[in-house]
């Protein structure tokens, strides 16, 4: 044990490995691209309008806040653009322009800047905005109502709402492959499961997000939904359905893994993800909301500082018996 190398260090000078916040932001945008392109393909130019306006407004709010607070302009790091992009991906393609402007204001100013900017936000900014919009303008976030004028050739009732209100008899209208390939009503960038998984794996391989959080979230959703399903198969949907519908996959790879609102240590990450998954299904199945992912993640965001108290044993403090 005494010969084990716990920490290898070397003298200065050091060489920067070239990573940057902007590089990370552009990776996020690249990872989100498959799901975004599918959203634009399905919902057309109105979806592009929501995405473009959301990204630009988020950047403009960030710039205005920087100027008002007399701080260095930070829109170059791309973080505001990513927040705007993720916010737009959660919206229906029919979101009016003022909803996008108000939502990005909430995301950037209330969700991020008032806490001190990047790295200081206790909640995921995009989710703060979506939560406020869900509570304030409910009908615009009701995908059944928002997408009444779209006929994309598949069953267009929002899957989670269909199951919640009509039980598992509606499952015959959905195929798991179809759900994975985006044949479901939902947000612009949340329906194409395969694209989100590919984007998520890319981010994991690049080291931008932690697999522990994504995997434990998906396991949390799966296990909780499984127990609900075996308890009452007529009422509660099977686990795979919960993973492929709603905000599950975008939450697992893009929302829950946000840096400053998620834990950094191994065990806390596992607990954080699993609890988020558990709460997501709990809210979906017995809560008031159709999709529980938004509030589940905001709730575990609150527990993040507490979870990070579970620290690994400090080096050199091991109890070695002579």
């Amino acid at each position: 044990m005494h010969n084990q190398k716990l920490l290898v260090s070397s003298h200065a000078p050091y060489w920067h490995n070239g990573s940057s916040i902007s590089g990370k932001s552009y990776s996020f945008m690249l990872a989100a691209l498959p799901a975004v392109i599918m959203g634009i393909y399905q919902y057309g130019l109105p979806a592009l309008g929501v995405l473009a306006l959301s990204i630009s407004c988020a950047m403009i709010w960030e710039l205005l806040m920087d100027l008002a607070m007399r701080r260095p302009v930070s829109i170059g790091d791309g973080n505001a653009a990513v927040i705007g992009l993720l916010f737009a991906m959660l919206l229906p393609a029919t979101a009016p322009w003022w909803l996008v402007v108000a939502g990005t204001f909430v995301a950037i100013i209330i969700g991020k800047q008032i806490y001190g900017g990047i790295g200081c936000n206790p909640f995921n900014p995009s989710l703060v905005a979506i939560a406020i919009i869900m509570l304030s303008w409910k009908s615009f976030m009701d995908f059944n109502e928002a997408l009444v004028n779209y006929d994309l050739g598949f069953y267009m009732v929002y899957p989670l709402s269909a199951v919640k209100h009509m039980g598992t008899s509606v499952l015959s209208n959905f195929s798991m492959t179809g759900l994975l390939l985006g044949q479901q009503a939902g947000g612009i960038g949340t329906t194409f499961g395969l694209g989100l998984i590919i984007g998520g794996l890319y981010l994991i391989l690049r080291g931008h997000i932690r697999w522990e959080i994504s995997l434990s979230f998906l396991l949390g959703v799966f296990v909780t939904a499984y127990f609900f399903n075996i308890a009452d198969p007529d009422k509660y949907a099977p686990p795979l359905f919960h993973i492929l519908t709603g905000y599950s996959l975008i939450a697992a790879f893009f929302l829950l893994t946000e840096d400053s609102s998620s834990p950094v240590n191994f065990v806390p990450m596992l607990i954080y993800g699993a609890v988020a998954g558990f709460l997501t299904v709990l809210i979906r199945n017995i809560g008031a909301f159709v999709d529980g992912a938004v509030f589940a993640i905001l709730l575990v965001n609150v527990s993040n500082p507490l979870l990070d108290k579970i620290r690994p044993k400090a080096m050199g403090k091991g109890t070695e018996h002579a």
Partner: protein
Amino acid sequence: MEVKTERIVAYGLAIVFFLVGIVCYAAFPVKTPEEPIRIMFKSTAGNILFDHKVHASESGYGIGCTDCHHTLEDEGEAPTACGECHEVDSEDPVKRSDAFHTQCQGCHEDEGAGPVDCSACHVR
């Protein structure tokens, strides 16, 4: 990229995306089809998502326009929306909820198809 370059790129992207957003919203709004696909009826008892296309199309239930839009003189004429005459609070001619209950529930019962329970249509 240098910080300054990053910032210039960000300014550029913000302007381009803003213009694209404005153009998309102004020139390509969500099209409302001539014949409704689905209609969300708002009700205090819970909203109802009515699939107009499935009810009206030949590949669906193939119900003729005049079967529901009873003021229509002939099939080619543009039908009046139900709520135009059947208002929420007005009993004259028949208030909206009664008109819909008679029309929807009545047809479902007569045909022995479609939901008749409250919670099967009204979703809270």
